[in-house]
């Protein structure tokens, strides 16, 4: 009755991905944007684990470990950039860092 298939994981992962994407695109505070990026990476890992289970293949889990390593590096560098931005501007709001008009 409550059998969990890969489809359940796909839907959950898509929901987390979309929530993270909305956070990245809409929030003005850079700290929350970095947190949303972590959410997106986590949702990808959820998919990798689900397919690893589906096909009984460990490759997905190993790729997940690498994704976590990349996320750790990304968080460290992103937060260092944030500290630099705060020193320069006295704020962490991305609207105050729009020289490149991105």
């Amino acid at each position, binding site marked *: 009755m409550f059998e969990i298939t890969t489809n359940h994981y796909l839907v959950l992962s898509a929901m987390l991905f979309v929530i993270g*994407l909305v956070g990245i695109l809409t929030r003005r505070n850079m*700290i929350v944007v970095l947190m949303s990026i972590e959410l997106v990476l986590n949702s990808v890992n959820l998919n990798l684990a689900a397919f690893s*289970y589906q096909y009984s293949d460990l490759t997905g889990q190993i790729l997940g470990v690498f994704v976590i390593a990349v996320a750790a590096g990304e*968080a460290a560098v992103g937060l260092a950039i944030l500290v630099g931005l705060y*020193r320069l501007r006295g704020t962490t709001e991305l609207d105050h860092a729009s020289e490149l008009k991105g």
Partner: protein
Amino acid sequence: MEFLLVNGPGLLFYLFAALAVLAAILVVSSRNPMYSAFALLVSFLAIAALFFLRHAEFLAVVQIFVYGGGIMVLFLFVIMLVNLHRVQEAKIYGMQWPAALLLAVMLIGLVSWVVARVQFSPANLAPAALVSVDGEVVGNVQAVAWQLYQQYLLPFEIASLFLLVAMIGAVVLARKE
């Protein structure tokens, strides 16, 4: 009792999935970054539980260590360093929300379309493959380690090099002039 034993994993999936989604919504919507950080921690732990349910024990424990421990402390330190005693901004969302809404609806639509068309079988073909080395059952951590040091040694070394570069980059970026 019978019901719980039979449907335990399914019920746990729904519990932790709901927890992860609610915490994720709180991360994106709360005004104070500190609340966002704690909601993010809840989301990480719920996702770690979901890894356990998919027989990815090593991934789950690494998730708790690296995300729940390392990255979380990094976030909390930076929030305390940067955001203390600051007036909360009146507007927390920027102008990109129409684009974000469009992308979100499109992506949810795409995934729903795919999920509705594809049916995966509920059970996997050979669950023992996730916990064994050369046909001998040893556990997920040893199986992952075996693969990691045999077949994926070069990516593993590149990942360690990447972490070194990221560390040096972070130190260089954050130091005082």
